[in-house]
């Protein structure tokens, strides 16, 4: 049943709550909803899942807005229940409450009665729908009954990911009745903690058989929250077993033979492990001046009145009529914004964002979210729809791009120094984005702030990677830890950190090999590196030239890191390093796509190929460029 229904203002004051049986909610799901969903402009999604941190309960939350009055209605219920009537109930509650709402009042006790009535009606309607559907589907349901039972048994500990498939989406089919029956049994298990993932597969399977996989509701929260220990253990156990089986059968990589010429000796030209050798090469200490991180950015202030004209010039014919009517209404004021009014303005905005290289999916979700926050709002007098939409989008973009957590690395480095440990930064990313180059830039910047840096060459795959880093280290005159090629990067990283402890370096910069997000074995190796060494900062290096692939890269990286993690609190991507920023003129959309999909802030921006070309992201100028 419904656990709680809250009505609160956008300013944060709770106006009315309904609590089932007076049970308090475990954790603070509503705060989590606001922080990770509504403020992140994901309000167009259908639902939000929340795991109480103490492992108590898992909830699903649904919400509705009343934008004109500035109210938010949130319903909370147990995830295992598939309540079908929540959407309708929220809409009905919104309707009724807006009648009795008064900005000066803060207590609405009479709403209890109204709510009880609405709830009964909604439940009755849902029961009717379910019964009618059940009678339609009675024959096939009996046949399917065998399936779930068997698959549940054999599947063992399934992934929890699948649970979200069933929850949140009002499937409204006959199987939900069975689901409730089963879930009543499993709800007791659920209370005991997340160990009961054995029951989860039954819901998982059900969701799969419904044939409507929930893809739309992207849940960053899911990535960052606890994963069932049971699921993890089986994966790790399976993986470990496989690995141990594979060990004795390891086949050494054979050199590729191209033609009939006699095979050459090993192609490893690494200098025999002596980094002090090579007196021939001049040591040019790199001192190219101040890194751009510390320079003030000169932002050109251009007039912003250009945007409205652009929007109008887009479609002169049909726009004229729309312009007239909107002009009329804007002067008159008191026009309530409808979806039909917002669609053209939002479509224009979405196209504009996409021309700025924002991924299509992200632009779509963002526009949906802005529409959700504007629908039903009263238009102020003398304002046009397009300008309202523009302001709302600008606010939303500013909010998304502003970092959620502190990006002051120097402070973190100092804190780690006090504790006596080195601060470890791992650079990950796909092939060819600029990890090694930007690693050197970060090292240069840190050196300028009197921090002792050490590099760790954990790219043991690409030819020349170790030499490249060695050259940088020589130029910057910092120590480098390397073990040559074809070594396990995770072990190399661990030894590098131990070495850093010994020679008391403040920061260790770990370079990894580039890998595609679909490459399972490589992602597993990366996950192993991160789990083994537990770095302080996992920096995803992405190039600003990337288009729609940014979404895929980041989401798959995060997913793999979460899935293959051996600890409950998986380490995900903590920050983003945006590279090749000088090559894009004003197509800065990749920054938005990456920040939106991962929730991680942009910590550095690489804007050139020399040591000083590293700067911070200027949020205001990016937003201005995006909406120009």
């Amino acid at each position: 049943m419904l656990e709680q229904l809250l009505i609160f203002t956008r300013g944060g004051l709770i106006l009315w709550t309904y609590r089932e049986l007076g049970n308090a909610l475990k954790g603070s799901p509503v705060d989590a909803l606001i922080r990770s969903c509504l403020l992140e402009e994901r309000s167009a999604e259908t639902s939000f899942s929340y795991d109480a941190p103490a492992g108590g309960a898992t909830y699903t939350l649904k919400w509705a807005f009343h934008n004109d009055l500035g109210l938010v209605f949130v319903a909370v219920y147990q995830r295992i229940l598939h309540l079908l009537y929540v959407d309708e109930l929220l809409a009905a509650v919104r309707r009724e409450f807006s009648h009795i709402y008064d900005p000066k009042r803060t207590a609405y006790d009479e709403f209890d009665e109204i709510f009880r009535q609405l709830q009964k009606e909604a439940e009755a309607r849902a029961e009717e729908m379910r019964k009618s559907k059940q009678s339609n589907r009675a024959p096939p349901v009996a046949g399917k009954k065998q399936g779930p039972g068997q698959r549940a048994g054999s599947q063992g500990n399934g992934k929890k990911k699948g649970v979200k498939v069933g929850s949140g989406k009002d499937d409204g089919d006959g199987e939900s009745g069975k689901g409730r029956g089963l879930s009543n049994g499993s709800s007791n298990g659920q209370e005991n903690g997340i160990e009961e993932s054995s029951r989860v597969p039954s819901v998982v399977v059900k969701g799969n058989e419904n044939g409507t996989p929930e893809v739309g509701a992207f849940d960053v929260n899911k990535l960052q929250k606890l994963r069932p220990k049971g699921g993890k253990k089986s994966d790790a156990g399976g993986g470990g077993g496989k690995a141990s089986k594979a060990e004795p059968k390891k086949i050494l990589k054979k050199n590729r033979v191209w033609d009939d010429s006699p095979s050459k000796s090993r192609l490893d030209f690494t200098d025999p492990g002596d980094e002090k050798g090579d007196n021939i090469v001049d040591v040019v200490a790199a001192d190219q001046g101040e890194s751009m991180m510390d320079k003030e950015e000169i932002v050109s202030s251009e007039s912003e009145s250009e945007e409205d004209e652009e929007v109008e010039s887009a479609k002169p014919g049909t726009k004229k009529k729309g312009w007239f009517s909107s002009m009329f209404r804007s002067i008159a004021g008191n026009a309530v914004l409808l979806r039909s009014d917002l669609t053209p303005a939002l479509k224009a905005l979405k196209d504009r964002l996409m021309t700025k290289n924002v991924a299509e999916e992200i632009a779509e979700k963002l526009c949906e979210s802005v529409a959700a926050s504007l629908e039903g709002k009263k238009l102020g007098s003398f304002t046009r729809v397009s300008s309202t939409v523009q302001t709302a989008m600008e606010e939303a973009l500013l909010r998304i791009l502003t970092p959620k957590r502190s990006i002051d690395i120097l402070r973190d480095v100092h804190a780690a120094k006090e504790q006596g440990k080195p601060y470890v930064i791992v650079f990950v990313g796909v092939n060819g984005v600029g990890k090694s180059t930007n690693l050197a830039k970060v090292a240069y910047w840190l050196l300028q702030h009197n921090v002792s840096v050490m590099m760790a060459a954990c790219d043991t795959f690409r030819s020349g990677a170790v030499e490249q880093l060695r050259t940088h280290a020589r130029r910057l005159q910092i120590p480098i830890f390397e073990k040559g090629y074809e070594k396990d990067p995770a072990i190399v990283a661990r030894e590098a950190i131990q070495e850093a402890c010994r020679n008391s370096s403040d920061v260790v910069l770990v370079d990894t090999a580039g890998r595609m997000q679909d490459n399972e074995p490589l992602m597993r190796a990366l996950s192993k590196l991160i789990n083994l060494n537990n770095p302080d900062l996992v920096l995803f290096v992405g190039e600003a030239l990337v288009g729609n692939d940014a979404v895929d890269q980041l989401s798959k990286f995060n997913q793999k890191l979460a899935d293959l993690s051996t600890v409950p609190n998986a380490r995900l991507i903590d920050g983003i390093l945006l590279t090749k920023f000088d090559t894009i003129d004003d197509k800065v959309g990749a920054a938005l796509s990456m920040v939106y999909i991962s929730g991680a802030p942009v910590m550095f921006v690489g804007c050139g190929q020399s040591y000083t070309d590293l700067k911070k992201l200027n949020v205001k100028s990016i937003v201005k460029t995006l909406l120009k």
Partner: protein
Amino acid sequence: MEQWMHQIEQWVRQPPVEQLYAALAVLVVTLAFFSILRLLKPSKSATIVLAGLSGSGKTTLFFQLCDDSPHQGTVTSMDPNEGTFVLHSELEKKGKLKPVHLVDVPGHSQLRPKLDEFLPHAAGLIFVVDSLDFLPNCRAAAEYLYDILTKASMVKRKTPILIVCNKTDRMTAHSKEFIKKQLEKEIDELRTSRNAISSADIANEYTLGVPGEAFTFSQCRNKVTIAEASGLTGEISQVKQFIRDHVEP
């Protein structure tokens, strides 16, 4: 209608015309004088801004001040709360009562830019700190406070700041002296890490404190005081005193 006009004309012309003109002139001059005075004298703003980390209890404090009750509880604010209220002690005073304009700015880090809208007009800032859950959030609170203390609009106008240790109704809440020391220590460290070498420190517009000495709040150009309060139970007398001191009618 015409009759009425005629009657007015007659009534107007009754006294001698010069006197009438003189009276009008005096009226106009007096009005002009007062309007100039009002324009020239800078009207003392009566805005108090509530700032602090998310979850420190600003919205509860806001409603406690405005309505004398925290109502049914709060959730994370998405928009600023603005309200005006009159301090009860002022009701006893005679004369014009100036209502205090209170603004509660959301503490969520992505909503921080909203603070810049209200700071330039603030007569005082109340920085709310959660004294219950202080140590895990100490660094974040110190960073926020440091950012506020180094904003140009704060330093130039010498806005007074009150640091309120909220949630003191609970047993495990830290004392205000402890919180003061911890904040000073953290800000001291922030000073060193932010002012490391670069002369063009783009992050903050002013530097805090005296170089070479440990930072204390007395070194700030703004007057910083520290107090205890509890938003839930209504023990906000020190907060009210601060408001009374700095919002003059």
